[in-house]
């Protein structure tokens, strides 16, 4: 993640960040967060949909 990408994403989310803050976020993203996000990107999630309301209970007959 480059600081410029952070600036674009944050601004799009309604949080314009100063350049030094974009740099700080990019540094943390690259050092600690990004490698973990990448592992999610590598998953084969098939047709799984995000739950509208998460529940710990799994449906009957689940075979995943």
């Amino acid at each position: 993640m480059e600081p410029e990408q952070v600036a674009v994403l944050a601004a799009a989310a309604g949080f314009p960040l100063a350049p030094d803050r974009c740099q700080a976020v990019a540094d943390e993203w690259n050092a600690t967060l990004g490698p973990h996000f990448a592992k999610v990107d590598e998953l084969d999630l098939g047709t799984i949909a995000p739950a509208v309301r998460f529940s710990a209970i799994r449906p009957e007959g689940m075979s995943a």
Partner: protein
Amino acid sequence: MSRPTLAQLQADVAAGRATSVQLVTDLLERIDATEDALNAYTVVGRDSALAVAAELDAAQAAGELRGPLHGIPISVKDLLDTADLPTSAGGKPRGSGTPETDAAVVTRLREAGAVIVGKTNTHEYAYGYTTVNPHHGDTHNPWDVARTAGGSSGGSGASVAAGSAIAAIGSDTGGSIRVPASFCGIFGIKPTFGRVSRAGVFPLAWTLDHVGPLTQSAEDAAIMLGAIAGPDPADATTLGLPPVEDYRATLADGIEGLRVGVPSSYFFDDIDAEVLASVRAAIAELEALGAVLVPVDIAGLDAAVGAWLSILLAEATVIHEAELRFAPEDYGADVRLYLEAGAAVSAAQYLRAQRAREQLADAFAVAMRDVDVVVTPATAVPAQPLGQGTVTIGDLDEALFLTLARISAPLDLVGLPAASVPCGLTSAGLPIGLQVIGHPFAEATVLRAAHAYEQRRGPFALVA
């Protein structure tokens, strides 16, 4: 040294051997004796606690016992609203800070007869594992005051361990009950998602937040959980679920034949050597008690922290969006950085994480089909020095928050009940925790397994 448990005090009060005013007075003295070293509380309600205690003693004299916590002083994390004490959520205090109403859990505690004695310190907005707090000061671990008590419910953990709380309420979004329980040598349980209402609790991340007790024992936790669990119209996640069990009724049934899953990887990878040895020894004790050990393999765990982080960052940032826009300097450096990082999590990334969460919940269900509980270390390392942001385990250098998250956060992600029970001390005299994970809404089984282990282990060492 020994210290009466909540269960013992409950029996003493019910039998007239102790009064609530005595218990509250003794506890206030203990708080006075320990707070300079620990800073476990953000506020103590001396006058209000003594007034309520006197009222409860009068009620008992008239033959009325309000409930299972009649006259017992209880402490709650400063994330829960209390109508008689200010709530800061660990953030910069604003105005009087005293809400108009109690959180649902506080209401239930009061209905059960509890005396709310004070609010315990937390990492700022519960967003961290160390309870290093720029607004209220850092909480220290009673086993070694140079070390963190864990977090974010660090004040709850430290106070119960030091005897400046009989029992306390905490919250857990990525391990914030179990980490302080492990670091402070006490019991803590994160119930199933939806089992306990979050109404009136300042949120960290709506779909990950849980509320639960930190106590001296599994039996104490059974009493506390029985008092606070159940449906609440103010928190829709608590509705339409299986009924609340009598957690104490089956506590002493033993674990003969209980099938205990032991993960073959992930939860036992990159663990401090002394922690690993102690947890392995505890698992052997479970087997000696008649449990059947079963290897289990839970697929997809490597992506759990990434999914948890995406959801946590995005939800927390939205919760704080107004203050983050207009007063970012009001936040401590670590919390501000993560709130700003949450602004860079895209909608696609968030939804992918929610899909990964469903996949992982399915994987846990499949892996646990043939077992009653799963056991793991509660934390990969014992309590670390305050201010230390990284740890070294073998060849691995890792940010402390990731070291803690990789063991505890997957259970917040999938919503399963999980407890930390003390199982040993390191050579430096620091507590080690065993994590016991159950099926959805099977808190009674988790508590039964933990109680059986505690009975075999014997009383855990207490800090003076």
